[in-house]
Protein backbone atom coordinates (compact mmCIF):
# COMPACT_ATOMS: atom_id res chain seq x y z
CA UNK A 1 0.00 0.00 0.00
CA UNK A 2 1.45 3.35 -0.93
CA UNK A 3 1.93 5.95 1.75
CA UNK A 4 -0.77 8.09 0.15
CA UNK A 5 -3.33 5.36 0.75
CA UNK A 6 -3.27 5.26 4.52
CA UNK A 7 -6.63 5.06 6.19
CA UNK A 8 -6.51 8.49 7.79
CA UNK A 9 -5.72 10.17 4.50
CA UNK A 10 -8.54 8.32 2.71
CA UNK A 11 -11.01 9.20 5.44
CA UNK A 12 -10.07 12.89 5.44
CA UNK A 13 -10.11 13.07 1.66
CA UNK A 14 -13.31 11.12 0.96
CA UNK A 15 -15.51 11.26 4.06
CA UNK A 16 -17.55 14.27 2.91
CA UNK A 17 -17.93 12.96 -0.64
CA UNK A 18 -19.05 9.52 0.53
CA UNK A 19 -21.41 10.91 3.15
CA UNK A 20 -23.07 13.49 0.91
CA UNK A 21 -23.55 10.87 -1.82
CA UNK A 22 -25.01 8.34 0.64
CA UNK A 23 -27.19 11.05 2.15
CA UNK A 24 -28.55 11.90 -1.32
CA UNK A 25 -29.71 8.29 -1.64
CA UNK A 26 -30.98 7.62 1.90
CA UNK A 27 -33.63 9.71 3.60
CA UNK A 28 -32.63 8.80 7.13
CA UNK A 29 -29.62 10.73 8.47
CA UNK A 30 -28.61 8.07 11.02
CA UNK A 31 -28.83 5.27 8.45
CA UNK A 32 -26.63 7.37 6.18
CA UNK A 33 -24.07 7.87 8.96
CA UNK A 34 -24.02 4.16 9.83
CA UNK A 35 -23.69 3.15 6.20
CA UNK A 36 -20.93 5.68 5.69
CA UNK A 37 -18.91 4.09 8.52
CA UNK A 38 -19.52 0.60 7.05
CA UNK A 39 -18.28 1.83 3.68
CA UNK A 40 -15.00 3.05 5.18
CA UNK A 41 -14.50 -0.27 6.94
CA UNK A 42 -14.97 -1.99 3.56
CA UNK A 43 -12.53 0.42 1.95
CA UNK A 44 -9.84 -0.28 4.61
CA UNK A 45 -10.39 -4.03 4.41
CA UNK A 46 -10.08 -4.06 0.63
CA UNK A 47 -7.51 -1.38 0.01
CA UNK A 48 -4.94 -4.02 -1.03
CA UNK A 49 -7.22 -4.94 -3.93
CA UNK A 50 -7.20 -1.44 -5.31
CA UNK A 51 -5.36 -1.36 -8.62
CA UNK A 52 -4.60 2.13 -9.86
CA UNK A 53 -4.00 0.78 -13.35
CA UNK A 54 -7.63 -0.31 -13.53
CA UNK A 55 -9.29 2.77 -12.07
CA UNK A 56 -8.68 5.91 -10.11
CA UNK A 57 -9.04 5.78 -6.32
CA UNK A 58 -12.07 8.05 -6.58
CA UNK A 59 -13.82 5.67 -9.01
CA UNK A 60 -12.93 2.67 -6.86
CA UNK A 61 -14.35 4.29 -3.72
CA UNK A 62 -17.41 5.43 -5.67
CA UNK A 63 -18.08 1.85 -6.82
CA UNK A 64 -17.78 0.53 -3.24
CA UNK A 65 -20.12 3.29 -2.04
CA UNK A 66 -22.70 2.65 -4.75
CA UNK A 67 -22.62 -1.13 -4.24
CA UNK A 68 -22.98 -0.66 -0.48
CA UNK A 69 -26.09 1.46 -1.03
CA UNK A 70 -27.58 -1.25 -3.25
CA UNK A 71 -26.81 -3.88 -0.57
CA UNK A 72 -28.38 -1.62 2.03
CA UNK A 73 -31.58 -1.33 -0.02
CA UNK A 74 -31.67 -5.08 -0.56
CA UNK A 75 -31.39 -5.85 3.16
CA UNK A 76 -33.73 -3.06 4.26
CA UNK A 77 -36.34 -3.36 1.56
CA UNK A 78 -39.19 -3.34 4.07
CA UNK A 79 -38.18 0.11 5.25
CA UNK A 80 -37.09 1.56 1.94
CA UNK A 81 -38.45 1.68 -1.58
CA UNK A 82 -36.05 0.00 -3.96
CA UNK A 83 -34.22 2.70 -5.84
CA UNK A 84 -34.78 2.58 -9.56
CA UNK A 85 -31.99 4.78 -10.81
CA UNK A 86 -29.33 2.09 -10.54
CA UNK A 87 -30.48 0.18 -13.59
CA UNK A 88 -27.16 0.92 -15.28
CA UNK A 89 -25.34 -0.97 -12.56
CA UNK A 90 -24.64 -4.26 -14.37
CA UNK A 91 -23.22 -2.51 -17.39
CA UNK A 92 -19.60 -1.58 -17.07
CA UNK A 93 -18.43 0.03 -20.26
CA UNK A 94 -18.81 3.70 -19.35
CA UNK A 95 -15.57 5.07 -17.99
CA UNK A 96 -15.88 6.97 -14.74
CA UNK A 97 -13.22 9.51 -14.02
CA UNK A 98 -12.67 13.24 -14.00
CA UNK A 99 -11.93 13.20 -17.72
CA UNK A 100 -15.21 11.49 -18.62
CA UNK A 101 -17.16 14.20 -16.74
CA UNK A 102 -15.22 16.89 -18.61
CA UNK A 103 -16.00 15.19 -21.93
CA UNK A 104 -19.70 15.09 -20.99
CA UNK A 105 -19.65 18.78 -20.00
CA UNK A 106 -18.08 19.76 -23.35
CA UNK A 107 -20.62 17.68 -25.28
CA UNK A 108 -23.52 19.24 -23.36
CA UNK A 109 -22.22 22.71 -24.19
CA UNK A 110 -22.51 21.90 -27.87
CA UNK A 111 -26.22 21.11 -27.55
CA UNK A 112 -28.86 23.80 -28.02
CA UNK A 113 -29.91 25.22 -24.64
CA UNK A 114 -33.31 23.51 -24.57
CA UNK A 115 -31.81 20.04 -25.22
CA UNK A 116 -29.16 20.62 -22.56
CA UNK A 117 -31.84 21.64 -20.06
CA UNK A 118 -33.89 18.51 -20.79
CA UNK A 119 -30.83 16.28 -20.23
CA UNK A 120 -29.85 18.01 -16.98
CA UNK A 121 -33.37 18.07 -15.56
CA UNK A 122 -34.06 14.45 -16.49
CA UNK A 123 -30.74 12.73 -15.74
CA UNK A 124 -29.22 14.86 -13.01
CA UNK A 125 -32.22 16.39 -11.25
CA UNK A 126 -34.12 13.11 -11.78
CA UNK A 127 -37.37 14.67 -12.98
CA UNK A 128 -39.50 12.50 -15.23
CA UNK A 129 -40.27 13.92 -18.69
CA UNK A 130 -43.71 15.13 -17.57
CA UNK A 131 -42.09 17.13 -14.78
CA UNK A 132 -39.48 18.44 -17.21
CA UNK A 133 -42.26 19.68 -19.49
CA UNK A 134 -43.86 21.52 -16.55
CA UNK A 135 -40.56 23.07 -15.46
CA UNK A 136 -39.73 24.24 -18.98
CA UNK A 137 -43.33 25.23 -19.71
CA UNK A 138 -43.46 23.27 -22.96
CA UNK A 139 -45.74 20.43 -23.97
CA UNK A 140 -44.99 16.84 -22.90
CA UNK A 141 -45.05 15.70 -26.53
CA UNK A 142 -42.40 18.23 -27.51
CA UNK A 143 -40.22 17.27 -24.52
CA UNK A 144 -40.39 13.58 -25.53
CA UNK A 145 -39.31 14.42 -29.08
CA UNK A 146 -36.55 16.77 -28.01
CA UNK A 147 -35.30 14.27 -25.41
CA UNK A 148 -34.80 11.72 -28.20
CA UNK A 149 -33.10 14.37 -30.32
CA UNK A 150 -30.78 15.24 -27.41
CA UNK A 151 -29.82 11.57 -26.91
CA UNK A 152 -29.12 11.16 -30.61
CA UNK A 153 -26.94 14.26 -30.72
CA UNK A 154 -25.07 13.31 -27.55
CA UNK A 155 -24.43 9.83 -28.91
CA UNK A 156 -22.74 11.38 -31.94
CA UNK A 157 -20.83 13.93 -29.89
CA UNK A 158 -19.55 11.31 -27.43
CA UNK A 159 -18.81 8.69 -30.06
CA UNK A 160 -15.30 7.23 -29.61
CA UNK A 161 -14.78 9.37 -26.50
CA UNK A 162 -16.79 7.59 -23.82
Amino acid at each position, binding site marked *: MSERLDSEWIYTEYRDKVFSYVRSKLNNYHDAEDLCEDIFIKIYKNIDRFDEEKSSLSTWIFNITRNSIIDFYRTNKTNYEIIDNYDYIEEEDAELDALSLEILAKALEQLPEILRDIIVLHYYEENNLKEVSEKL*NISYGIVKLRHKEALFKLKNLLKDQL
Partner: protein
Amino acid sequence: MNMENKLKKLFDYHRFSKNEHLQQIIDDTNTRVEEKEALILDENSLSFAVGGVREVEDKTDKDFLEKDKLGRAV
Protein backbone atom coordinates in the same frame (compact mmCIF):
# COMPACT_ATOMS: atom_id res chain seq x y z
CA MET B 1 -24.22 0.63 -22.72
CA ASN B 2 -27.02 2.74 -24.15
CA MET B 3 -26.86 6.52 -23.97
CA GLU B 4 -29.51 6.80 -21.25
CA ASN B 5 -27.66 4.48 -18.88
CA LYS B 6 -24.36 6.12 -19.74
CA LEU B 7 -25.83 9.51 -18.74
CA LYS B 8 -27.29 8.10 -15.52
CA LYS B 9 -23.93 6.62 -14.61
CA LEU B 10 -21.95 9.77 -15.43
CA PHE B 11 -24.32 12.13 -13.63
CA ASP B 12 -24.37 9.77 -10.66
CA TYR B 13 -20.58 9.83 -10.53
CA HIS B 14 -20.74 13.62 -10.73
CA ARG B 15 -22.86 13.58 -7.53
CA PHE B 16 -19.95 11.82 -5.87
CA SER B 17 -17.01 13.59 -7.46
CA LYS B 18 -18.04 17.04 -8.64
CA ASN B 19 -16.71 18.38 -11.92
CA GLU B 20 -16.76 22.19 -11.87
CA HIS B 21 -17.47 22.55 -15.58
CA LEU B 22 -20.42 20.15 -15.46
CA GLN B 23 -21.71 21.75 -12.25
CA GLN B 24 -21.70 25.14 -13.99
CA ILE B 25 -23.89 23.70 -16.78
CA ILE B 26 -26.27 22.24 -14.17
CA ASP B 27 -26.40 25.56 -12.27
CA ASP B 28 -27.13 27.45 -15.49
CA THR B 29 -30.04 25.13 -16.27
CA ASN B 30 -31.44 25.51 -12.77
CA THR B 31 -31.13 29.30 -12.97
CA ARG B 32 -33.02 29.32 -16.29
CA VAL B 33 -35.75 27.12 -14.79
CA GLU B 34 -36.05 29.39 -11.73
CA GLU B 35 -36.30 32.46 -13.96
CA LYS B 36 -38.95 30.77 -16.09
CA GLU B 37 -40.93 29.76 -13.00
CA ALA B 38 -40.69 33.30 -11.62
CA LEU B 39 -41.91 34.67 -14.94
CA ILE B 40 -44.87 32.28 -14.99
CA LEU B 41 -45.65 33.27 -11.40
CA ASP B 42 -45.50 36.96 -12.38
CA GLU B 43 -47.77 36.37 -15.37
CA ASN B 44 -50.21 34.50 -13.16
CA SER B 45 -50.18 37.27 -10.54
CA LEU B 46 -50.65 39.83 -13.31
CA SER B 47 -53.59 38.00 -14.83
CA PHE B 48 -55.01 37.53 -11.34
CA ALA B 49 -54.57 41.26 -10.72
CA VAL B 50 -56.10 42.11 -14.11
CA GLY B 51 -58.93 39.71 -13.35
CA GLY B 52 -59.37 41.41 -9.98
CA VAL B 53 -59.41 44.88 -11.52
CA ARG B 54 -61.87 43.70 -14.18
CA GLU B 55 -64.08 42.28 -11.45
CA VAL B 56 -63.97 45.58 -9.57
CA GLU B 57 -64.65 47.45 -12.82
CA ASP B 58 -67.59 45.17 -13.61
CA LYS B 59 -68.93 45.69 -10.13
CA THR B 60 -68.44 49.48 -10.40
CA ASP B 61 -70.20 49.51 -13.78
CA LYS B 62 -73.03 47.47 -12.33
CA ASP B 63 -73.26 49.75 -9.27
CA PHE B 64 -73.16 52.80 -11.51
CA LEU B 65 -75.88 51.43 -13.75
CA GLU B 66 -77.97 50.45 -10.78
CA LYS B 67 -77.41 53.82 -9.16
CA ASP B 68 -78.15 55.48 -12.45
CA LYS B 69 -81.22 53.38 -12.79
CA LEU B 70 -82.07 54.05 -9.16
CA GLY B 71 -81.10 57.69 -9.63
CA ARG B 72 -83.49 58.05 -12.47
CA ALA B 73 -86.09 55.96 -10.72
CA VAL B 74 -85.61 58.01 -7.58
